């Protein structure tokens, strides 16, 4: 279903940044360093299983 990547990115940002702009910049940097540019995904973006796996790992790893 298209848009899963966008939803996961939004969830990660919400989960980790607590509305802190500095933290948001750090989290977005982490994503881009993983090869996932948040600006490139929309709710119409096709799912990519490799990207989804990276994002799910990131969500699940936060201790």
């Amino acid at each position, binding site marked *: 279903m298209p848009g899963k990547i966008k939803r996961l990115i939004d969830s990660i940002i919400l989960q*980790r940044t607590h509305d802190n702009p500095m*933290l948001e*910049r*750090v*989290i*977005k*940097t*982490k994503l*881009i*360093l*993983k*090869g996932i540019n948040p600006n490139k995904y929309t709710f119409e973006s096709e799912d990519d299983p490799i990207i989804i796996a990276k994002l799910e*790992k*990131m969500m699940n*790893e*936060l*201790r």
Partner: protein
Amino acid sequence: MDIISAYSTKDAIDEIVKDINDQLGFFDTELLVFFASSKFAPDEISKKIQDSFPVSQVIGCSTAGEIAQGKLLNNSVVAMAFNSGAIEDVKVELIEDLSDQAALKKAFDSFEKHYGTPMGTMDPQKYVGIILVDGLSCAEENLMENIGDMTNVIFIGGSAGDDLQFKSTYVYTKGKSYSNAAVLALLKPKKEFTFIKTQSFRDLNKVLEVTKADEAKREVLEFNGKPAAVAYSEAVGTTIEEAPKKFMTNPVGLIIEDEPYVRSPQQITGSGSMTFYCSVLEGTELSLLESTDIIKDTQKSIVQAQEQLGSISGIININCILRTLELKQKNLADDYGRLFSGLPTVGFSSYGEQYIGHINQTATMLVFK
């Protein structure tokens, strides 16, 4: 003063340790961070430094050059001591084998147990990590990515060096030396802190898209659908044979919010691919960079940090060896050292720098108010 630095250029380890101890011995050291020229036997330097600070947490690594207040040095040992006025607490963990997938989780379990707080909820303004990694391990990228997945706390640090021999580098803790390893120190400072990540390059707006890569080998096979060496040479305007001469002045960078995360070319292989000092992901759009003014940019970064904090009581400066070489080539090493005059500073010339990820040709600094 809650943070003080020392250095020694003596030849023998016993003399070095005595010299450092004479400078720091009166200080109630909670944490000692030291960087040692690779000329010193790793087990011996680590043991004797720890023995002379028996109740302190001690971390360090071997280098490709050292930095102490006001000077770029070689063949020396530099050290920074933090007392209980600077840090409320510190916990050090060793990842003894970087191929052990479970080791980082064990280290983080230990941090959580020590501090009584999950790593995922630690406030990154109240905790900071220092990381020192074997500079020949090629493990920095995965390690930083996994750390970043598990916590919002920033770990800043560098890759150990060995004076450009590229044979073996070491990290030090608990009186021993380790290869294929990393030392992580999680600090709860009493002082406010900030970070400097500075690299001196302009973006030439020439895109090199990584269309084929072997990420584990840090190898780019193709840029823009062409053999990497061909595409890079065309972008810098030279021949493939001459292209290596451009590596230091024209690396490539992943641009994030107008700031480059530098990837430095290492060599061109026989098949026309290029290896880097950092992993490069397939599908990434990199920009060709051109070097600018290290002195001016570093000075600006220090001033900004000073303005942000109000004052600076200590800096740990991890400065890429490629920057050190460039400074020496341009006879600017003394000018660079002078930027830190009056600011207790230690650091080293590194084989890679860590701040959020693994990067090259950058200085990453932990700065304390």
